[in-house]
């Protein structure tokens, strides 16, 4: 496989993507504020997007670029729904701590 030359080596892109993904995951797991959690999820999306475009560029295959757009669209929709849920929960309970929202406990 013939990789396109990069000005910055490809490992840096992938490393950045991994760090971002990890930070996002940490944010989702550790933070209790749903707004912060949604932001963390956005960070994870963007980490995935970065990986996608990096590999698309590397292998000269445009599928990755197209897929990144798709992910952006999904992320936008997810943010809209997620924020709507947060608003509804806040209106009901005057509180948005996710640990308090445990009505599905078995």
């Amino acid at each position: 496989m013939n990789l396109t030359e990069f000005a910055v080596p490809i490992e840096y892109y992938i490393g950045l993507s991994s760090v971002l993904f990890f930070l996002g995951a940490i944010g989702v797991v550790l933070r209790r504020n749903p707004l912060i959690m949604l932001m963390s999820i956005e960070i994870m999306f963007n980490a995935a997007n970065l990986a996608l475009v990096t590999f698309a560029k590397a292998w000269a295959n445009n599928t990755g670029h197209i897929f990144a757009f798709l992910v952006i669209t999904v992320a936008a929709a997810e943010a809209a729904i997620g924020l709507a849920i947060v608003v509804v929960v806040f209106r009901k309970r005057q509180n948005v701590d996710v640990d308090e929202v445990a009505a599905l406990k078995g």
Partner: protein
Amino acid sequence: MIVHHILGVDGQFPLLYLIWLLPLFGAILLWAFGPQLKSLAGPIGSALIGTAFVASLVEWGLATQAVGTNGAMLYGAHMSVLTWTKGFDFGLLWDRLSLTWTLIITGVGFLIHVYSIGYMNGERAFARFFAYLNFFVFAMLTLVLSDNFVGLLVGWGLVGLASYFLIGFYFDRPSAVAASRKAFVINVVGDVGILYAVFLIVSKIGSIAYGDAFAAAQSGFTPGELTTICIALFIGCAAKSAQVPLHTWLPDAMEGPTPVSALIHAATMVTAGVYLIARCWPFWVNSPDARALVGAIGAITALTGAVLGIAQWDIKRILAYSTMSQIGYMIMGVGVGAFDAGVLHFLTHAFFKAQLFLGAGIIIHNLSNEQDIRKMGGLRKQMPFAFAAILVGVLAICGIPPFSGFFSKDAVLYETLVHGHPWLYAIGALTAGLTAYYMFRLLFVTFFGTYRGDVDPSSLGIRHPELAGVHAPHDENAHTEHAHAPAWLMSVPVAILMVPATLIGFLYLGGRESVWVKFFAPVFNTGSESAATPILSELASTLLVLAVVLVGIAVAYIRYARAGFFANPIERLRLESIRMPAPLTNALYFDLAIDYLVVKPTQLFGKVCARIIDPIVIDGAVREVSLSASWLGHLFRSFQTGLVRAYAFVIVFGVACFAAYYAIAGGVH
């Protein structure tokens, strides 16, 4: 491709459909529209059976025709009706054997239908009775006309059902209900035997048709298989034809109306076993073990029935035991291989026993359902016609020449000897003497001396008057308030039956050269056997049996028809009732034995099932399954914490695990 062997010339014969289905039509018609038809139900039911009888006579030539095809002779006719499944067809077989049975079923059946119009007049369920009778005739015709074992089994089961309906006709009488249930259960035991035989035949030759089975009889089965098939078939015969030890339902079946006893439990249904063995003669010819066994059981049954007949006081039970005894003769005859003699005894017995039952029915009818002969006596002058009818019947059943029973019983006994069974012959001859004794006892006690109907039952030794044949509940308003039907309805059928009961035996005049044997020669094509010289000549055998019979009559005469008896008949009957040996009054303990050997263990098994297996094993298993589902549910719901971050952590942890795995295992490639 199976080449099907057929018995009879193939074709379509509309009259056979008519013979077969008219009774079914009658049953449905009377069942559905009985309340509307009212008293017309009897004449309609009788007319349909009469038409079937005429149609059978018209088709006589078809049954006896002989047509040569491909070097083989085919006798009679065969008609395909329907195909159950590929290779398994149902058809009607119309040959000399089914002709004989069809003529008896429809002919005697017609007379008994006519008689029933008079006997059942004013009964609550008049139309239902005729619907049942017609249904029985249809079932019996299915049995004898079928060209295969499964059709036979269907008819076999249906006649059992019809018998169940008719024994339990007075369903408000607990004893009748119990009797009908007993008859049905014992008959089903026989059905299972035949079913097993059918399984064996199908698994071996892949066909249920008689033609195929009989073609294979000689070499298609091993001797062991053939004997097993014969014994399985005979279990069916024993249950249906009241052979020891499955006979106990027959005396109880007398709970049904008397015409039913005459038609079903004397003339036709109980001889189905004789038909089956005669039809399956190729099996019996090729299985000496089955011949010995069936002949012996027939002889034992004949003797048992006669011994028990001695101890009875109920006129219908005496006749029931004599029926059992006579069927024992028939089974002995067909069992040892004397098929035409056995079938001849069926023919004569159908006439004289139907006549005896119908004659007894006239007495019972006129005495307001009294059945105990101790309460009769002196009826000769009161009912001369019934006396004549019973007298002819008694002479016939005892085998007094020239009455029909003489020829047939003589034929069966002598042929038993010819086929090499001197012991069975001895039992048969002894039975003939006992038969003469208890039938003349019936005749003397019932018709001679003085009338004892107004005597206190206990002074006659009747212990439980309410159980001793006084069946009051159903008839209080039946025969008194309603106008009596014309008497000729009951007497004419009996008078007609007297003719064949007297004369039909002459068909056998000439022994092996007689019309009867020649008629059946194409059916029972047993070939020329190596005839061992019997120890007695035919004349000697006849004279010996006659001598035994005369001794029996003489003993009965001395005990019941001389001054010693007439001096104080009431005291004599009381003493005889009281001193009757216990084994005889308890019917040789057969019921008791069956109760302890079969019924009680089965009930015990039922209790074990109900109290241990069902609640603990079966319910327990179900309970454990449901409990384990619940337990698993408890386990899995503990994972559902409701904490979103915990779910997220599990997901991340899972992904991390995958990543770690690939990192350690060296990647996907």
